[in-house]
């Protein structure tokens, strides 16, 4: 990227050799075939990775070793056996079978070559039949033909790897040191992707970095905000840097569809699904886990979507993302996925299964990690028509020891919600009523951090109420529930919202209701990331109603509307909140920025608006004691910022006034010029109008004239009563 000519250079060169650039049709220039004048395409090296295989042309050939050595008479029989095995996996090319003979003995040599239609099939065949037992003494050893070359190249002598000199990288956390403590955000609209500062004081965003065609499908911040990931056809890339966005690493994974970072952003999981060459076959799913910093593939998983589909009973189509769920915490130590009747837990030291085997859990339906600890919560539905109850259990990893289990009866569905500190787990349980015709909902509340993990049952006051949304207060002990009477849901589109606390002042061990707000136009809950405040939002059907609610004081701070809003995102500090209308519908695409208490700061309109994401911040290094101290002495700290705020607002209004004055002056100049020209042309105009001198150019004047009219005057004597 270093020796790119700037446009100015080009213009200078053109002027020197006498070419008029404006006359030049750039599209008409054809480079000689194979010549690129040293201009390296950005994507070349990714292509190279793929092409090297295709060029060799042998990537669809496998070598099967350890076959029986047979004389010529049995050649055909063996060929049939091998063909039968491999034709189940893929299509062998017409003359794609070759089993060489020893010219001396006229016997086979114990290996053969198979050429498939596609490299994918070859790879699949290798995976499936490596270690295939033809009989006791003939266990297949299958290799890719291309690998042979590679293995041959390995030198016999080990040479120590060259150690590269250390070059200090950029400070990838530079944005956190912003003097005004602003947050960054990324937006994607049309073909452009732009990173902006949210400059709330100046009531506008400040551009930071912009690039057209930065990504081919979407962008994503890493969970701690260090990287911005872009997704392309050839793979994914991460970007970051101190003063701009440089590409830090690329991850080749052709046709990648989905990506997911581990919570400590050490690893990146990429997912793709390929159409098979044989339409009867299922799609082929490839999942790679990369080390974010080195770009190395740590482990890959391949198979059909069924292998990765979640849901114990099977029959669930498609893959639910993320397939691999990461255990909480910054260490990125464990990740797990659910298969049929098993939970496979891997650890990242070796990228293999913990204890070398998966956990057997019959019919497991759902699982989730605690956001902070290596604890898994599992849900297993009812079995055998109710003979075996459904259960929710908590399992400690890596010991795989069950910490707590709760059996539940006549359950139709279960959903698990962890509080962000991993202190509480709420399990929403839908149970059948006695008639089995309808369901009602209750909550099982686990207190993870307390001794023996006590469980409490919470039921709504009105049993018919259906739960529309549930949300824990981040880092807090409260939660909010939107519920609505099921029986007359159609007549009553205004649901109620209730707030509960896991420990109220006088009762620390029990859940208690704080309040219920009746008849709200809301269907989604958005807690501030620091708690205390919540937005009760009516998206979709409710056209973007917003209510900013203070849960400490139990009062509404503001109500507002962002018409047709589709997304709501709190900034990581909980100071500002963005509401956005993304490109699901045509009109009014763009975003609004509000303060936490519902004051609209500014709005930006962008056509074809696709994404809005705040840049996450890593957790604070301050100890809880220090944070408490700051909260206590907030006045002292805030003084400085208030003064700054005031300066800015004075500056702004000054600037505004100045700008207006300039505009007015500029306008006056135009008007004076026009008046003069108009005067000059007066005579000509008069002639054009056949001498009609009515050029008193209609000087209307607005006058407020007050006319008072006495319509009626009545005098009457009003009786005065004691």
């Amino acid at each position, binding site marked *: 990227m270093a020796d790119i000519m700037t446009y100015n250079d080009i213009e200078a060169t053109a002027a020197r050799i006498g070419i008029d650039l404006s006359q030049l049709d750039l599209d008409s220039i054809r480079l000689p075939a194979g010549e690129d004048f040293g201009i390296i395409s950005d994507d070349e090296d990714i292509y190279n990775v793929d092409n090297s295989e295709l060029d060799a042309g042998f990537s669809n050939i496998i070598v099967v070793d350890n076959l029986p050595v047979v004389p010529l008479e049995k050649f055909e029989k063996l060929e049939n056996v091998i063909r039968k095995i491999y034709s189940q996996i893929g299509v062998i090319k017409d003359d794609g079978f070759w089993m060489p003979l020893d010219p001396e003995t006229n016997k086979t040599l114990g290996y053969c070559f198979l050429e498939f239609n596609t490299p994918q099939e070859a790879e699949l065949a290798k995976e499936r039949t490596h270690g295939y037992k033809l009989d006791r003494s003939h266990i297949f050893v299958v290799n890719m033909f291309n690998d042979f070359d590679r293995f041959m190249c390995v030198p016999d002598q080990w040479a120590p790897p060259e150690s590269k000199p250390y070059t200090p990288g950029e400070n990838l956390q530079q944005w956190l040191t912003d003097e005004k403590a602003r947050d960054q955000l990324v937006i994607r609209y049309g073909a452009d992707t732009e990173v902006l500062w949210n400059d709330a004081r100046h009531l506008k965003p400040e551009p930071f970095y912009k690039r057209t065609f930065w990504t081919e499908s979407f962008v994503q911040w890493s969970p701690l905000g260090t990287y911005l990931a872009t997704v392309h056809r050839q793979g994914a890339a991460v970007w970051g840097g101190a003063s701009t966005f440089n590409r830090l690493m690329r991850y080749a994974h052709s046709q990648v569809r989905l990506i997911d970072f581990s919570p400590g952003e050490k690893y990146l999981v990429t997912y793709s699904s390929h159409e098979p060459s044989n339409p009867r076959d299922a799609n082929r799913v490839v999942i790679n886990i990369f080390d974010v910093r080195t770009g190395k593939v740590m482990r890959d998983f391949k198979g059909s979507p069924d292998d990765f589909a979640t849901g114990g009973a099977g029959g669930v189509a498609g893959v639910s993302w993320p397939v691999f769920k990461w255990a909480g915490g910054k260490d990125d130590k464990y990740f797990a996925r659910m298969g049929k009747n098993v939970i496979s837990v891997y650890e990242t030291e070796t990228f293999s299964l913990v204890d070398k085997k998966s956990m057997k859990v019959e019919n497991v339906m759902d699982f989730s990690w605690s956001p902070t600890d290596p604890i898994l919560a599992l849900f297993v539905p009812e079995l055998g028509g109710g003979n075996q109850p459904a259960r929710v259990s908590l399992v400690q990893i890596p010991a795989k020891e069950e910490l707590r289990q709760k059996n539940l009866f006549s359950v139709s569905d279960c959903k698990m919600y962890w509080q962000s500190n991993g202190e509480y787990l709420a399990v929403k349980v839908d149970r059948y009523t006695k008639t089995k015709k309808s369901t009602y909902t209750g909550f099982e509340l686990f207190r993870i951090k307390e001794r023996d993990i006590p469980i409490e049952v919470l039921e709504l006051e009105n049993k018919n109420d259906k739960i529309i949304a549930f949300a824990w207060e981040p880092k807090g002990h409260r939660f909010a529930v939107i519920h609505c009477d099921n029986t007359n849901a159609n007549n009553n589109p205004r649901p109620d919202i209730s707030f509960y606390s896991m420990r109220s002042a006088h009762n620390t061990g029990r859940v208690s209701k704080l309040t219920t707000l009746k008849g709200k136009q809301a269907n989604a809950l958005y807690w501030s990331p620091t708690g205390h405040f919540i937005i009760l939002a009516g998206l979709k059907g409710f056209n973007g109603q917003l209510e900013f609610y203070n849960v400490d004081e139990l009062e509404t701070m503001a109500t507002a509307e962002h018409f047709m809003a589709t997304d709501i995102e709190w900034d990581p500090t909980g100071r500002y909140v963005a509401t956005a209308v993304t490109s699901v*519908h045509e009109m009014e695409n763009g975003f609004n920025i509000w303060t936490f208490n519902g004051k609209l700061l500014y709005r930006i*309109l962008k056509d074809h608006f696709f994404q809005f994401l705040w840049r996450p911040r890593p957790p604070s290094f301050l100890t809880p004691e220090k944070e408490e101290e700051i909260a206590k002495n907030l006045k002292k700290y805030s003084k400085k910022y208030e003064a700054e705020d005031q300066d800015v607002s004075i500056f702004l209004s000054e600037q505004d006034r100045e700008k207006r004055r300039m505009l007015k002056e500029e306008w006056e100049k135009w008007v004076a010029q026009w008046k003069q020209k108009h005067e000059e042309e007066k005579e000509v105009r008069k002639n054009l*109008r056949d001498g009609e001198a009515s050029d008193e150019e209609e000087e*209307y004047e607005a006058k407020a004239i007050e006319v008072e009219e006495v319509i009626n005057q009545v005098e009457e004597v009003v009786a005065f009563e004691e």
Partner: protein
Amino acid sequence: MRPILMKGHERPLTFLKYNRDGDLLFSCAKDHNPTVWFADNGERLGTYRGHNGAVWCCDVSRDSARLITGSADQTAKLWNVQTGQQLFTFNFDSPARAVDFSVGDKLAVITTDPFMDVTSAIHVKRIASEPEDQVGESALILKGPQGRINRAVWGPLNRTIISAGEDAVIRIWDSETGKLLKENDPEVGHKKTITSLAKSVDGSHFLTGSLDKSAKLWDTRTLTLIKTYVTERPVNAVAMSPLCDHVVLGGGQDASMVTTTDHRSGKFEAKFYDKILQEEIGGVKGHFGPINALAFNPDGKSFSSGGEDGYVRLHHFDSDYFNIKI
């Protein structure tokens, strides 16, 4: 401000024009009958019958004696304003769109649409003072711009013609020789079809509205961009107050999209902007459908809007309006 709802047209409105005295309002619509109304109380005076297609544009002479209309029936017609009598018909090979009388009313500019093999064109016609002397020949024909020419108006002293249309370029032509004098700077110009153009009273500057969701103010003589007004929806119609430093923009989403979304999302409001500061100062709601036409009364005390819904809404400003301070 209680608007007067004027229902006379059966199809979407296309154009509105006040006469110089501001007592008459002429309206064109996709039904075939241009209509004249009292500009004060909205009473219908009469219609001009004779066109056989949508009427796109009209202009009235300074003395309010003649009306010229351009129609999709491939004609432009001259009318006697008072009697409604057809005086003359200009025939073309394709639909006529914009019409404009020159200063002195001795010339008229008429644009025609591209149609089959015929390209779009700007015609200059001489207008005889006596109807019986009127001839159909064009004094000048200008060709060149791609696509429809939505508006063509006379420049100062009839020396130039300003045109704008589908190719989003504003052009100034010499009205004598037909030479192209100027095109606007594409850097700052509109990005999509220019739908409307309104001159200031003295003709020194004009305002263009475009589907790129903006309106721009230009100097007529130099074609310098002076102001840009950014809005949230495609602009179909623009008007400038002759009295205050205000401009009005009207528009909305495509008619085909209207039924699929809430009426609020369409934004069928007439939006008022401060002409100098380029800031929005207010809006007038009412139409159920995009606004296609806007016109200010020459006295600046009332304005009217015509919508896709077939209504003309006549608004007399409250006294508060004249005291707006921002």
